[in-house]
C-alpha cells in the first residue's frame, strides 16, 4: 500500500494533467479561444442542437414518387427506342398502370425485335449486371416491363446519394456552415443545422424537388375540357402555381433544369423579383431554336408539376439567358434560385421528424445547466467533507479531477454535449463518489475491527474493489444499450454516463489511493481520522 512505484505516480498524474489540458479549450469562451496557445490541444466538446439552438430534420425519400418517376422515364425510353432505331417499330397503347410499363407492338412480326431492343436498354445495374427491368411478352404482342427488386434498390441508392449532395448544396451553398447531412438506413437523410432562426425556410428549401421544365402551351385544347382535366393526345393538364385554374401543355420538354448552368435572384424592368437563369450550351441552343419557331405563342415554366407562368414568346431568346417570373418575393425568388442552382432532387423528400430549438432557449439551458452542475458539485463536496473529513477531501479532489477528465475525454472524441448530457454529468457527480464511499466505509469497518491504520486502509481498498467493479458494470451495460438504441439527445446522455463511469472508477480507485498512500507515508498517523 505504502510504496507506490514512481512510474505509477507519474502516469496517474500524467493522465490527470492530460485530462485537464484537454478539457480547458472547451471551458474557454469561444471569443477568447485564440488566446490558448496553438501547440496545446484545442479540440472542443461540440454542443448539441438543444443547447446551441438549431434544427434537426429527418427526411425520408418518397418511394412512390421515385417509382412514378422511374415508370415515366421508362415510358419515354420505350417511345424513343422504338422510334429511333432501324427499322422503326410501331407501337400503341403505352401504359404505366399497375407499376409496370406495357405497350402493344403494332406489327406482330416485330415483337422479337422490340424485346431485343428493350433487353439491351434494361441490362445491367451494378457489378453483378442484374437486370433492372424484366422484359416479358403477354398476349403475343404486348410487351411488359416490370421493375426488378435489384433495379429499384439501386435506383434508390443512387437517388439518395445525389439527394444528399443536393440537400447539402441547398442549405449551405458556400460550404461554410457546420452542418451535418448524412444518409440513415436506405431511404433517410438526417440534416442538422446549428443556429437556425427560421426552420420553415430550411424546410421549404429542402422540400422543393426543383424539377424545372419549359414546355409549349397547347393552344388547340378546348378550355372547358382542360378545366375538367382532359387534354388532347400528346398533351397534359397541369395546375397553375397560384391555384385555381389549369392549363394544357405539350408533353414534350423543350428544356429542363438539368441544362441550367446557373440561377440567381434578380429583378425585372419593373423592379419585381425574378429568378435569372442561364442555360448551358446545349440548353441555350435548344431554347433558342424552339423560341425561334414559336414566336407569338406562349410557353410555360413548370416547377415541380406546377405552372409558374406562361408568358408569350415576343422574340427568339438566343443568348441562353432567361427570366422566370411568377409573383415572387425577394425571399422566394432567392430560395428558388438556390434550389435550381443546386440541382433537382432525384426524389421527393418528406420531413418525418423535426426538432428545432431557438438559440435563446439553448443559451438559457446552458446557463441553467452550468449553474446547476456547479451548485450540485458544491453540495456533494460539502456533504463528503462533513462525512469523511480528510478522506472526504481526497474523494472531493478525485471528484473535481473526474469532472475535468469527463470534459477532456469528450473533447478528445469531439463528443456532443446535449441537454440530457448535462443531467448525465450531474448524475455522474453524484454517483462518482460512490466508489469512494464504498472504500471509505470499508476502511471505517476494518478500522473498527481493530486493524492498524495502514492495514485498514489497504484492506479497505482491496475489499471494496469487487463491489465497485460489479456495481459499475451494471451502469456500463445500461449506458451502452442507451447509446446503441437511443437517438440524439439520449445518446448524448449515455455517452456522458459511460465516460463518467470509467473516469470515476479511475479517479476514485487509483487517484485517491495514491493520495492516501503519500499521506500515510509522510505522516505515519497512529489513528485513522475517518
Amino acid at each position, binding site marked *: 500500500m505504502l510504496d507506490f512505484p514512481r512510474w505509477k505516480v507519474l502516469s496517474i498524474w500524467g493522465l490527470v494533467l492530460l485530462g485537464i489540458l484537454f478539457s480547458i479549450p472547451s471551458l474557454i469562451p469561444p471569443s477568447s479561444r485564440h488566446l490558448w496557445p496553438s501547440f496545446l490541444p484545442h479540440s472542443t466538446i461540440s454542443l448539441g442542437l438543444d443547447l446551441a439552438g438549431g434544427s434537426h430534420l429527418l427526411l425520408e425519400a418518397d418511394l412512390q414518387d421515385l417509382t412514378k418517376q422511374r415508370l415515366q422515364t421508362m415510358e419515354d425510353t420505350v417511345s424513343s427506342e422504338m422510334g429511333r432505331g432501324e427499322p422503326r417499330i410501331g407501337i400503341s397503347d403505352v401504359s404505366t398502370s399497375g407499376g409496370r410499363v406495357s405497350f402493344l407492338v403494332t406489327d406482330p412480326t416485330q415483337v422479337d425485335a422490340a424485346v431485343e431492343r428493350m433487353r439491351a436498354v434494361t441490362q445491367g445495374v451494378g457489378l453483378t449486371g442484374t437486370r433492372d427491368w424484366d422484359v416479358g411478352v403477354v398476349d403475343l404482342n404486348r410487351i411488359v416491363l416490370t421493375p426488378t427488386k435489384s433495379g429499384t434498390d439501386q435506383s434508390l441508392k443512387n437517388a439518395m446519394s445525389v439527394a444528399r449532395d443536393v440537400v447539402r448544396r441547398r442549405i449551405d451553398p458556400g460550404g461554410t456552415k457546420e452542418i451535418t447531412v448524412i444518409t440513415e438506413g436506405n431511404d433517410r437523410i438526417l440534416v442538422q443545422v446549428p443556429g437556425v432562426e427560421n426552420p420553415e425556410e430550411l424546410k421549404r428549401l429542402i422540400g422543393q424537388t426543383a424539377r424545372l421544365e419549359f414546355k409549349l402551351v397547347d393552344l388547340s385544347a378546348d378550355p372547358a375540357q382542360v378545366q375538367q382535366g382532359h387534354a388532347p393526345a400528346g398533351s397534359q393538364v397541369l395546375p397553375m402555381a397560384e391555384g385555381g385554374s389549369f392549363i394544357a401543355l405539350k408533353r414534350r420538354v423543350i428544356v429542363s433544369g438539368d441544362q441550367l448552368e446557373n440561377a440567381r435572384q434578380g429583378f425585372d424592368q419593373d423592379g419585381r423579383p425574378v429568378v435569372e437563369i442561364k442555360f448551358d450550351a446545349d440548353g441555350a441552343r435548344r431554347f433558342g431554336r424552339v423560341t425561334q419557331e414559336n414566336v407569338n405563342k406562349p410557353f410555360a415554366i413548370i416547377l415541380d408539376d406546377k405552372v409558374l407562368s406562361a408568358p408569350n414568346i415576343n422574340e427568339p431568346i438566343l443568348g441562353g439567358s432567361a427570366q422566370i417570373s411568377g409573383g415572387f418575393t425577394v425571399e422566394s425568388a432567392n430560395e428558388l434560385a438556390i434550389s435550381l442552382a443546386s440541382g433537382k432532387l432525384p426524389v421527393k423528400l418528406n420531413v418525418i421528424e*423535426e426538432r428545432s430549438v431557438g438559440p435563446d432557449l439553448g443559451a438559457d439551458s446552458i446557463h441553467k445547466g452550468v449553474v446547476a452542475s456547479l451548485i450540485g458539485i458544491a453540495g456533494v463536496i460539502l456533504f463528503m467533507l462533513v462525512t469523511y473529513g480528510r478522506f472526504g477531501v481526497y474523494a472531493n479532489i478525485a471528484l473535481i479531477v473526474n469532472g475535468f477528465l469527463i470534459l477532456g475525454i469528450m473533447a478528445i472524441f469531439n463528443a456532443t454535449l446535449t441537454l440530457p448530457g*448535462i443531467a448525465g454529468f450531474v448524475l455522474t457527480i453524484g454517483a462518482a463518489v460512490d466508489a469512494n*464511499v464504498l472504500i471509505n*466505509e470499508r476502511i471505517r469497518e476494518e478500522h473498527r475491527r481493530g486493524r492498524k491504520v495502514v492495514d485498514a486502509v489497504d484492506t479497505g481498498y482491496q475489499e471494496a474493489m469487487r463491489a465497485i467493479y460489479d456495481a459499475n458494470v451494471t451502469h456500463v451495460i445500461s449506458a451502452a444499450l442507451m447509446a446503441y438504441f437511443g437517438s440524439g439527445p439520449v445518446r448524448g446522455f449515455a455517452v456522458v454516463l459511460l465516460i463518467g463511469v470509467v473516469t470515476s472508477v479511475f479517479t476514485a480507485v487509483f487517484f485517491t489511493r495514491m493520495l492516501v498512500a503519500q499521506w500515510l507515508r509522510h505522516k505515519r498517523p497512529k489513528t485513522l*481520522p475517518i
Partner: protein
Amino acid sequence: MRLLKLVPDHTNVDFMRWRNVAVVVSTLMTILSLAYTAYRGLNMGVDFVGGQMIRVSFAQPINVEQLRSRVDGLQLGESSIQEFGGPKTYQIRLPKASGGDAAANVAATRVKTMVTSSYPGARIDSVESVSGKVSEELAQNGAMAIIFAMLGIAIYIWMRFEWQFGIGALITLAHDIAMTLGFFAFTRLQVDLNVVAAFLTVVGYSLNDTVVIYDRIRENLRKYRKMAILPLLNLSLNETLARTVVTSLTVLIALAVLMAIGPEVIFGLSLAIFLGVVVGTYSSIYVSTPVLVWLGVTPDSFVKTETADGAAPQNG
C-alpha cells in the same frame, strides 16, 4: 473535527423482521402501479405517439383560456396547452395531422403565425414534430433498450454470482420499473425520449445498490458458513447501510439541485431518476434481499460451485 455519521457505528437493524410485511407491501404496490398504468395510461409525448409540440415564451403572463380558444380556433384537432417551467412559457401540443407530413408542417406554421401576431414579443422556443412512423420506431427502440438492459444486467449478475441472485435482480428491476411507471401514470408527467433515458438510468442505479449488497452477502456466506440465512442477510444489510445511505444522498443532492434550478426541459428526466433512486434504495433492501431467502440461498450455494470448479478462482 467530528465527522457526520448518519448511520452510527454499531447499527443493528433487524431488517428481515419486516420482510413479510415488505413483500406484501411491495407486491401490492407493484400490482397497483401496473393496474393504474394500464387503466390511466401514460401521458405519451410526441416522441412516442407522433404529433407536434411547440414551446412558446411570452413577454408577459397571458390568459391561458384565451390562448386555448385561439389555438382551438385554428381547428387543428384536439390540442393541449400546458404551463411549462414558468407562468410565461407554455407548451402547445397538436395531434398528428390527418393529412400526412405536409399537413403537419402547415399546422405548426399556422400556430406559430397566430402566436407571433396575437402576442407581440412572444418567442418560439422550440418546435418538435414527429411523424407516426418515426414515433413508432422511437417507442419500439425505447422499449427494446429497457428490456435488453434488464436482461443483460440480470445475466451478468447470474454469471458473477448465482442464479438466485440473477432472478433477485430481475425481480428488483421489475419492481422499480413498475413503480416508476405508476408514478408517471399518476402524475401525468409527459413521457418522452428523455424519460426512457431516465428508466435506463434507474435500471443501472437500482442494480448498482443491489449489487453492492449482494456482494456483501456473498462475502458473508463464505465467511460465516454456520450462520442462519436471516441473521446473515441482516448483518450484510447493516454493514452496507452506511454506504447505501451516503451514496443515495449524494445522488439525491445532485439531482435535487438539477430539478430546482436546472433547465426545465430535463425536469422530467431528473425527477424520474430521483424517484428511481429512492425506490431503488428501498428495493435493494426489501425486494432483492428477501427474494434470496425465498429462492433458497444457503451458504452452500457458493461452496458447491467452488468445489465443483476444483481450484476455485478467488473473486475480486
